[in-house]
C-alpha cells in the first residue's frame, strides 16, 4: 500500500511563523518518517503548539513549506488534510453523544465504493460509509480506548480521563495519516497520566499511525518518543532519540531542560582531558586543547566513595531523601555538584567522588564575551543593542589628554569629534554586566529568557525588545521572564574603531 510513497510522511521546510512582528517559530526543519512517534518538547511559549497547529492547518506558516507524502499542503485548510488532532482540553461536542462525537468524521468522509455493474465491469464511485460500517468502526475505536458500550452516554457524564479517551477515539477512528496530540495528558492527574502514557504508546504500536506529540513534560517525552524535537524560543535546539537527547545534549539549554544535570564551565587541557572544579578528568569527547566547554555531568553519574579514595574530595552540603534515591549536594571548593545515589551521606562529611569518562559530556562554548555593533553619541556614550551606556572613549586612541562629551583631545592638541562614529563593542560574560530590577538604573531593559545554573553561579540571557541578547553571569537567582535593566560598568566596555 505504501509502495509508491516517500519514506518521510511529512516534511517541514524552513517554517517560519510571525505574529505581530514577533517570530513564534523560526528556521524549523523537520522530517518525520512513516509510523514514527515524534515529540515536540519545550517550555511554554517555545513555539511547539504553533508548529503543531501549522501541521493541522489551523495556522498557516508565514514562510516555508509543509509537505505530506511529497505534496505541498502548506495552504490547505484543515478539513482537507488527512490529519487528526487530539486537543488539550478534549474539545468534545457537548450537544452530541459519544457515538455521534466519534462518528462525526466518519459521516463526513467520502470513500471510493467499487461494485460490479450488470455487464460485470467494476465501477468506482464516491460515496459515504454505510450506517453499519460507521457503527462497526465506532465500536472498534471505543474498544481500542477501552470504553466499550459508551455509545449512548453524553459527554458531561464522563470523567476527564474518559473524555480524553473519547477524544483519542474520535481522532483515530478516521484512520488519519498523522495523529497530532497537543499536550493530551496535561489535564489529568499524575497516576492517570502515567497509565495513559503507556496506553498511548501501545496504541501507537498497534495502529501504526504516525504520532506527533506536544508536551512540556520531559519525562513524558523520554518515555514515549522515537524522536524528540527540543524547542526553545521558536527554534529547534536538538533533534534526536531520547537516548541522544539525554546523553548527548547539543547545548546547555537541552542539558538543563532534559533531566537534571550539573552544568559547569570547563576547559580542555589535553587529549581527552578536561579541567573543571580545579581537577583534570578523563573524558570521551575530543576537542582541541584550550577549548572552553560547558561540562555536563548527570547526577547519577557521580559516584561517592570514602575520603581520599576518589578523584577528588568534596564536602557534603545537604541531603534530601527522594524515595528511590538520595539527592546529595556537595561542594567542590566553591562549586556545587548534585549527586543522586542510593547510598546516604552525612552533612558536613568529607567524601571522595569519581566520574567515569563517559559520564562527562562536553559542549563547546567559546563564548566569553558579548559583542555588538555600536555608535558613539554626542554625549560621549555608546549606543548598542537597544541600550545606551557610558564608556571610556580614551581607549580608542593612544595619548589622549582629555575627553569632553564626544570630543576627545589628543596630546598633540588635535581634537576629534566622535559623534556618530561606529565602533565594535564587547564586554565579558563573567564579571561583566549586572542586572537591576529598577528599569531606569541600567542602560538597557530586557527580559530574562533563560537561566542555567553552573555550580557556583547562574548564567542568564536577557533579551531586549528588538531581540538583542545580553549574556551575563550572576551569583544570585533571578526569575525567568523578569524584566531587568542591564548595568555595565564603564571600565568593562571595550571599544574598537571600525
Amino acid at each position, binding site marked *: 500500500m505504501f509502495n509508491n510513497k516517500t519514506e518521510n510522511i511529512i516534511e517541514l521546510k524552513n517554517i517560519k511563523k510571525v505574529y505581530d512582528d514577533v517570530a513564534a517559530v523560526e528556521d524549523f526543519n523537520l522530517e518525520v518518517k512513516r509510523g514514527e512517534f515524534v515529540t515536540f518538547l519545550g517550555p511554554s511559549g517555545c513555539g511547539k503548539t504553533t508548529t503543531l497547529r501549522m501541521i493541522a492547518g489551523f495556522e498557516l506558516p508565514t514562510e516555508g513549506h509543509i509537505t505530506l507524502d511529497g505534496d505541498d499542503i502548506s495552504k490547505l485548510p484543515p478539513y482537507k488534510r488527512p490529519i487528526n488532532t487530539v486537543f488539550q482540553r478534549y474539545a468534545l*461536542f*457537548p450537544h452530541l453523544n459519544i457515538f455521534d462525537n466519534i462518528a*462525526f468524521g466518519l459521516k463526513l468522509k467520502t470513500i471510493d465504493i467499487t461494485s460490479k455493474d450488470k455487464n460485470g465491469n467494476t465501477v468506482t464511485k464516491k460515496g459515504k460509509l454505510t450506517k453499519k460500517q460507521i457503527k462497526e468502526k465506532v465500536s472498534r475505536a471505543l474498544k481500542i480506548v477501552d470504553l466499550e458500550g459508551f455509545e449512548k452516554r453524553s459527554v458531561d457524564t464522563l470523567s476527564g480521563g474518559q473524555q480524553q479517551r473519547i477524544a483519542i477515539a474520535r481522532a483515530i477512528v478516521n484512520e488519519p495519516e498523522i495523529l497530532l496530540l497537543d499536550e493530551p495528558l496535561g489535564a489529568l492527574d499524575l497516576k492517570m497520566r502515567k497509565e495513559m502514557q503507556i496506553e498511548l504508546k501501545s496504541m501507537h504500536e498497534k495502529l501504526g499511525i504516525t504520532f506527533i506529540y506536544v508536551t512540556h513534560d520531559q519525562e513524558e517525552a523520554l518515555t514515549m518518543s522515537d524522536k524528540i524535537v527540543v524547542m526553545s524560543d521558536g527554534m529547534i535546539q536538538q533533534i534526536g532519540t531520547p537516548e541522544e537527547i539525554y546523553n548527548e545534549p547539543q547545548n546547555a539549554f537541552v542539558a538543563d531542560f532534559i533531566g537534571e544535570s550539573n552544568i559547569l564551565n570547563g576547559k580542555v587541557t589535553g587529549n581527552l582531558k578536561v579541567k573543571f572544579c580545579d581537577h583534570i578528568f578523563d573524558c570521551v569527547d575530543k576537542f582541541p586543547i584550550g577549548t572552553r566547554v560547558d561540562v555536563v555531568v548527570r547526577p547519577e553519574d557521580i559516584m561517592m566513595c570514602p575520603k581520599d579514595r576518589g578523584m577528588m574530595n568534596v564536602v557534603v552540603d545537604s541531603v534530601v531523601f527522594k524515595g528511590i534515591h538520595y539527592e546529595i549536594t556537595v561542594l567542590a571548593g566553591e562549586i556545587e555538584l548534585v549527586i543522586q545515589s542510593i547510598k546516604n551521606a552525612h552533612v558536613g562529611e568529607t567524601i571522595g567522588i569519581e566520574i567515569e569518562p563517559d559520564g562527562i559530556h562536553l559542549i563547546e562554548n567559546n563564548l566569553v564575551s558579548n559583542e555588538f555593533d555600536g555608535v558613539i553619541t554626542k554625549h560621549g556614550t555608546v549606543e548598542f543593542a537597544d541600550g545606551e551606556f557610558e564608556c571610556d572613549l580614551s581607549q580608542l586612541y593612544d595619548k589622549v589628554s582629555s575627553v569632553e562629551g564626544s570630543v576627545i583631545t589628543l596630546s598633540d592638541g588635535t581634537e576629534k569629534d566622535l559623534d556618530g562614529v561606529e565602533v565594535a563593542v564587547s564586554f565579558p560574560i563573567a564579571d561583566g554586566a549586572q542586572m537591576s530590577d529598577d528599569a531606569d538604573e541600567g542602560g538597557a531593559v530586557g527580559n530574562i529568557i533563560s537561566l542555567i545554573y553552573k555550580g557556583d553561579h547562574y548564567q542568564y540571557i536577557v533579551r531586549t525588545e528588538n531581540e538583542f541578547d545580553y549574556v551575563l553571569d550572576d551569583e544570585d537567582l533571578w526569575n525567568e521572564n523578569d524584566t531587568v535593566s542591564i548595568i555595565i560598568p564603564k571600565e568593562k566596555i571595550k571599544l574598537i574603531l571600525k
Partner: protein
Amino acid sequence: MLKFSRKQLCIPYAVFLLIFVIAPLLVVIYYAFTNGQGNFTLENFTGFFTDTNTIGTLVYSIFIALVTTVICISIAYPIAYILAVSKLKKKSVLLMLFVMPMWINFTLRITAVKEVLTAIQGNLAFHPFLNTLIGMTYDFLPFMILPLYTTLEKIDTKLLEASADLGASPAKTFFKITLPLSVPGIISGVTMVFLPVMTNYVVLDMMYNSTYIMGSLIGSYFAAYDWNNGSMISIILLIIIFIITLVTNRLNNDESRGAVV
C-alpha cells in the same frame, strides 16, 4: 437584639409577590369567571372560542408574532454571528450600537419609525401590514441580537477547530456545531420577541393598522368597562404563553446542555 434567620429575610419579597403578583392574578381570575353581576360563569371562556372575531384576532396575533420572529432571527443571527466571530477590538461598541435603541423610550422610537416611513411612503395607510412588521421588527430586534450574541460568543473555538480537523467544511461546521450550540440563544430570543409581539398593539395603532391583535382586544374590552371578558382573554393568553414556554424549555434541554442566557 433581633436575630434574623435566613427565612425571615425572605419576608419582604414574599409580601411583594403577594401584593403585586398573586393578588392581581387572583383578581383577574375572579373577573374571568364571573359575569357583570358577580355570579360564577363559564360564558366568558366559551364565548372566546365560539366568537369568530376573537379567534380571528388570536390567529392574526400569532401570525404577526411568527412573521416578526422569523424576520428578527434572519436579521439578528448574521449580525450576532459576525460580531461574535470578528476579532475586532471595538466590537462591544458595535454591539452597543445595535442594542442602544432598547434604552430609548418605546413610544418615541415607534414615532420616529413612523415619521421615517411617512417620509418614504407619503401615506402610511397604504401598507398597514408591512408597516406593522417593520415597526415590530425594529422594536424587538435588539432582544433577539443580545441573547444570540451571548450564546455565539461563548462557543469554544476549539470545537470549531475540532470540527474542521475532522473534515467538516466551514459550512458544515456551521450547521453541525455552531447552529445546534446556539439553539439556547435562539430560544431565549424567540421568547423575548414572539410573546410580547402578540400583545403589543401600540405599534399597530401607530401604523394605522386597524386590525385587532390580542393586546388591542383586551384594551377594547377594558375601555368598555367589560372587566370580565378582558380578564378571560388575559388568562387565555397567559395559558398560551405558559404552554409555549414549557415547550421551548423542553426543546432547550434536549438540544443542548449549557449556555442559556
